[in-house]
């Protein structure tokens, strides 16, 4: 690993516990595994790859650690067809054309036209050129094409990009990097080798209660408990898309807005769409099944 030319400031957190409480300060309750992963990623200066079912809080974790580090968060949302022009840089063509027209005929030379003031910085370049140490979040990397993954591999090993007209731009400070993936496809081994890997599971009931109470201020204690148990019950069933943590929070927000103190079958039925996103699942969870689940959750 080439680290020599990049200045790395001293470690911000002295221990996992210290990082853990900083995350809690950013309203994120990490379990020990995730806290360790984030800590090691900082200490070893390696990108962290977070995988897990949709809605377990992968993106949230990145945002929280950015807050805890007081580092600006630069997010690159991946999608199919994402290319260098949208991820790294692009020339501002409109300005370039105007510039040529505004100048006397023949007075514009190419070096001037392809200068930094005509460069549009996209997330990757922005992260590399930043004066401050930033956190680069590469979200849902599995959605990008494999060609882009190969390019990313280069960036993550050298933290430099080459703009043909300008030359190579190297990072002044190595950005913190977090990648997330929903596993719609397997990532390249070469990319994985560069990263620490952490699989985020659904939270335990006790932790989910804590998280709900933290994220939905004013939620009745009983409602938070019953809702967390209900969500856990749903995850143990054979559903097409079990609810994630994000869904539980949305749902409890809805129930709280409706003034609920505890789970009641009619209200649960009315708000179930915030928890289950597939029609088939909604057809499965109704009538006696629903009543049964509510009864179990109420204990």
């Amino acid at each position, binding site marked *: 690993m080439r680290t020599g030319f990049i200045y790395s400031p001293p470690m911000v957190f002295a221990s996992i516990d210290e990082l853990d409480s900083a995350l809690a300060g950013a309203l994120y309750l990490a379990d020990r595994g995730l806290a360790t992963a984030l800590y090691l990623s900082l200490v070893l200066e390696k990108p962290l790859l977070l995988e897990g079912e949709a809605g377990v809080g992968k993106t949230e974790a990145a945002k929280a650690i950015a807050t805890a580090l007081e580092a600006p968060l630069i997010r690159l949302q991946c999608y199919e067809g994402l290319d260098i022009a949208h991820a790294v840089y692009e020339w501002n063509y409109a300005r370039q*054309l105007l510039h040529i027209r505004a100048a006397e005929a023949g007075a514009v030379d190419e070096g001037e036209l392809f200068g930094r003031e005509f460069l549009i910085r996209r997330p990757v370049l922005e992260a590399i050129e930043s004066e401050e140490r930033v956190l680069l979040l590469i979200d849902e990397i599995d959605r990008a094409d494999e060609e882009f993954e190969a390019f990313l591999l280069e960036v993550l090993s050298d933290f430099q990009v080459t703009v043909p007209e300008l030359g190579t731009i190297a990072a002044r400070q190595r950005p913190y990097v977090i990648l997330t993936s929903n596993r719609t496809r397997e990532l390249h081994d070469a990319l994985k080798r560069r990263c620490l890997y952490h699989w985020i599971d659904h939270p335990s009931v006790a932790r989910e209660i804590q998280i709900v109470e933290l994220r939905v201020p004013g939620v009745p204690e009983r409602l938070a408990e019953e809702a967390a148990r209900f969500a856990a019950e749903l995850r143990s069933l054979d559903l097409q898309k079990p609810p994630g943590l994000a869904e539980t929070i949305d749902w409890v927000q809805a129930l709280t807005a409706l003034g609920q103190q505890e789970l009641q079958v009619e209200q649960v039925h009315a708000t179930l769409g915030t928890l289950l996103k597939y029609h088939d699942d909604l057809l499965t969870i109704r009538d006696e099944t629903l009543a049964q689940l509510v009864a179990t959750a109420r204990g």
Partner: protein
Amino acid sequence: MADSRTPSPAAAGPPHAVVRHVVLFGRVLREGGLEVGPRRIADALRALDAIDLARQEDVYWALRQTLVARREDLETFDRAFHAWFLRAATPPPLRPAQPLRTAAERRRVGAPAAGVELDGGEIEVGSWSRDELLRKRDFAAMTAEEFARARALIREIAVGRPRRRTHRLRPDDRGTAIDVRALVRASLATGGDPVVRAYRSRAHAPRKLVLLLDISGSMEAYARALLLYLHAARGSGRGVETFAFGTRLTRLTPELGSRNADTALAAASSRVVDWSGGTRIGESLKAYNDEWGRRALTRGAVVVVLSDGCERGDPLVVAAEMARLARQAFAVVWVNPLKGHPEYEPLTGGMQAAYPYIDRLVSGHDVASLEALGTVLGGIVRRHAA
């Protein structure tokens, strides 16, 4: 394995003992099938250096996060960790202890029924026309020698891949999107007047292809040939996923990745545990939909099911899971070797249940029909309108 462990950490200094432990642990993981290179070992050591070794939980996470890169490997890791660091008496077997049959034995299991003779076989014909005859010969009726020659033909089948338009733009003189970058460059010479036109258009890439092969008893005569076809398909480029199913679903994509057909087939054969057993099409499709469909593998893909549709389970499950599959897939193609028979009608329970969700039903009983399948796949341009 067990006797190579060091029981006395006191003999060496603590750091040395840690290094030794981690290196040996890496070896245990490798035996369990994980890819643990020197780089990962080095990372693990650095990680252990950064944490409090007295906290067992932190040691667990530090090792897991540096040595494991796939969710599938977590279970193996956990077992190895418990055996190694939590001092179980003997490490539990990392792999199921069942005796593995050799590839040769497996091939024999899948061999076509002996004693079927070539009806006009003794006529001396040139090699080309011999191949022509062979192309139309039902796999089930082939002799071992014929099958050996058919293998070579299947291997050469250029598997047709449906294409899709990507969002990427490539330079193209007949394209419709203006290539502004090229335009700006050219405008330098004309004082800012955009004279030279350069265009770009969307590139095309192969569409995802998912192949699900029935290897149950009733498919015995065809499974070998179709597995070869799966291997040929896997070699056609990126974005091909292959699975086998009988009573359970087995992903074969890594095994069939080897260029050498014999190596690939041997690897695939030893991976599948339910060769020539019963059929649970519905349950297998459900396993696929649950694990892979949920991970969006099916979305936008052409899914090919290769099966005779003889279902021993509940046809209602087949219908429900086919519906799920069809909702996500770009197109569903069913390859049924029985369709090669002139009087075939989709009457089996599983086939009838699946029928409404199939875009195209084709045979797959001989080399010629597999070639035709390539044409069918290559011609799929619109969703569910194969």
